[in-house]
């Protein structure tokens, strides 16, 4: 029994340096997730600012409509379909780096969810805070920057952390455009060795460990930011 497990381990990971599929895949997954998170934060932040500025002041009407279309389309269609459309339709006729496509697709997708998270955070800050800022002489942007955003960010940190965990796991569909991410790497080993258990469990464990580490980091940040609540 133990001997057979050891044999399978050697077959799946050691022989022909098959562990490289996992290691290279992990690199791709981390790279895509990292940059998609950045794209998502920037995009989500901008959309949230446009949407809440419109809600509060009635300005930016055209941009607000644009943002709403974006939110509706992205949240109303599966991420795999978005990924395929971006790769085969939008960049169909050009030879383009698949990692870049994946970053764009997952970033664009995440941005929609991050936007709503940020917006709920901004809306959760009472109107009194806004009025206090304005009455001191801060303009709209300064009030947002110094008074509303820091509080909103603190309130949405758990939801934001959750969104990034979801994003990390969602990148596992990158194999649809033949990008060799962590999941695809495990799957390639499976197709070579005809052993599903070893590579797929290894992949699952790696995702789980990454999520646990990330959750821990978010919790630490949250605790630091909570220092003003007693």
């Amino acid at each position, binding site marked *: 029994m133990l001997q057979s497990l050891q044999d399978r381990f050697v077959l799946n990971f050691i022989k022909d340096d098959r562990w490289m599929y996992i290691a290279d895949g992990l690199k791709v997954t981390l790279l895509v997730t990292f940059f998609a998170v950045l794209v998502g934060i920037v995009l989500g932040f901008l959309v949230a600012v446009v949407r809440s500025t419109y809600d509060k002041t009635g300005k930016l009407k055209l941009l607000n409509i644009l943002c709403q279309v974006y939110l509706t389309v992205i949240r109303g269609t599966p991420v795999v379909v978005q990924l395929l459309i971006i790769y085969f339709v939008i960049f169909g006729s050009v030879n383009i780096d698949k990692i870049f496509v994946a970053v764009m697709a997952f970033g664009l997708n995440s941005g929609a969810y991050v936007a709503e998270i940020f917006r709920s955070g901004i809306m959760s800050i009472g109107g009194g805070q806004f009025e206090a800022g304005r009455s001191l*002489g801060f303009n709209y942007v300064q009030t947002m920057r110094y*008074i509303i955003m820091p509080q909103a960010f603190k309130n949405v940190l758990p939801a934001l952390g959750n969104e990034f965990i979801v994003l990390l796991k969602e990148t596992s569909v990158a194999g649809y455009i033949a990008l060799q991410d962590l999941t695809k790497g495990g799957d390639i080993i499976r197709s070579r060795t005809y052993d599903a258990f070893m590579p797929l469990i290894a992949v699952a464990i790696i995702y789980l460990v990454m999520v646990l580490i990330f959750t821990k980091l978010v919790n630490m940040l949250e605790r630091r930011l909570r220092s*003003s609540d007693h």
Partner: protein
Amino acid sequence: MTINKGDTLIRVEQLHKIFGELHALNGVSDEIRKGEVVVIVGPSGSGKSTFLRSLNLLEEPSRGKVYFEGVDITDKKVDINRHRRKMGMVFQHFNLFPHKTILENITLAPTKLLGKSKEEAQKHAMELLELVGLEAKANAYPSQLSGGQKQRIAIIRSLAMDPDVMLFDEPTSALDPEMVGEVLELMKKLARDGMTMVVVTHEMGFAKEVATRVVFMDEGQIKEQAEPGEFFEHPKDPRLQEFLSKIL
């Protein structure tokens, strides 16, 4: 332009504010002079808070004009933020910034808007904290303070901008009764020091003792105004007589 005691600081002309169906302000005109302590009273829904909030344009009037230190601040071309720095405002619910310490609450606007150095702003903030006896709370957060302490901090946060007028929107209405006194004491001290003040309140004792003029608002209009003795002893408007008989 220097403004001397007795000169007009704020002039309001035919102010109207319409919220959907509600005509909250229905043609209010008034003049607030430097050094005056104007107390505005009236039943709820009379438009007194809307009027006060129109003075620094937190509420944008539907019609009419507000002049502050000779400038028409309802003019869209005017940078309202610059003028608001000179008009302190104190709210019913304090609205301290919960993510900042007391000291940061006070120094935020002076450092960011007046270009004061951090040291300079902190020195001034500590002086103000000593004025209200809360210097020990400089590094505390708002959530660690009582309601009365929060409101006193809110007042000196406005004072840190060195305003020409202070607007108070029911500053003691959200306080436990035993904390009303400490806030009123501070407001009386400000009045004694010559601060121009416009106060919406239900504290008739404060009006009698400190006000230079008491204004009665009802149905979005100023129905009567007089110095406190006259106002409380010989009210003329029947609605004011009814109002006073209910609360005194």
